[in-house]
């Protein structure tokens, strides 16, 4: 089993099975460009620095990739926006401890940076699921977003929405 070492922004090393990294478009491109697949060169032993991903987040990303090993890798942006995305139970449980917190957002940002399309889609959907049936003030409170609106602006939004809800 070929292992490739990923290095997080806080200098933690994560040896990861080569096969798993095919899920990440960013890492896959780096591996190809740096000839890391060529076992006859010194490059093969070279660690891959990920200066935008902290260790605790990278650990979660690797955990997710391990569970989804062998899943078909989504390519391109030809997602059918009309198709309802269902977050499988395992993934729902995986995202839950980080709900309403910065960790879930960090994981989403990491999925985008590492170009792991399935993780990005499910993570975004899991966040959007937490918004279901909630009002703006409730979401502000849960996610710690400051209120920028005047009462008049809030009233204007309410009136605009009135006919559509």
């Amino acid at each position, binding site marked *: 089993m070929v292992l490739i070492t990923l290095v997080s922004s806080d200098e933690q090393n994560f040896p990861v099975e080569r096969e798993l990294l095919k899920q990440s478009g960013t890492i896959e491109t780096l591996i190809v460009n740096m000839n890391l697949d060529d076992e006859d060169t010194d490059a093969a032993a070279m660690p891959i620095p990920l200066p935008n991903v902290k260790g605790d987040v990278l650990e979660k990303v690797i955990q997710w990739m391990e569970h989804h090993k062998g899943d078909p890798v989504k390519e391109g942006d030809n997602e059918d926006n009309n198709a309802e*995305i269902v977050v499988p139970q395992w993934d729902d449980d995986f995202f839950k401890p980080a709900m309403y917190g910065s960790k879930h957002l*960090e994981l989403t940002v990491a999925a985008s940076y590492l170009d792991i399309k399935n993780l990005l889609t499910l993570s975004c959907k899991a966040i*959007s699921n937490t918004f279901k049936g909630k009002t703006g003030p409730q979401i502000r409170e849960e996610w710690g977003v400051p209120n920028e609106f005047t009462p008049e602006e809030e009233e204007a939004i309410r009136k605009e929405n009135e006919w559509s*809800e």
Partner: protein
Amino acid sequence: MDESDGSSRMEALAPELLKEILEKCSLNDQLRLRSTCRRIKTCLTPHISHLSAPEECTITRMSLRKLHNSIHISVDIDDVAVAQHFIALGDRAIRQWKRKDNEKVRSIYRYRFTDTDLFN
């Protein structure tokens, strides 16, 4: 990606990621989410067709009725986007209400109008 760079806060999320999350919400959730913060409102509003009042629209029925000390304007709203044109009308009314008749919604606006005012 520490908290100090802002990427771990909802209001500082990159626009493409915010869009990716918001477009996965239902229409009703998107409408409500607009009152979270300006950024979310700006991101969502152009994509909600119900909120874009058409430049030109046809009203199938509009009536004016004089009552004691008031006049009533009633409009049949056949399209939710058209209703956006009538928000300002409602702002000036002393009372506003709706009547639902199957698929049709009639919006009624009441304005103060004394008997001494002209009504020609």
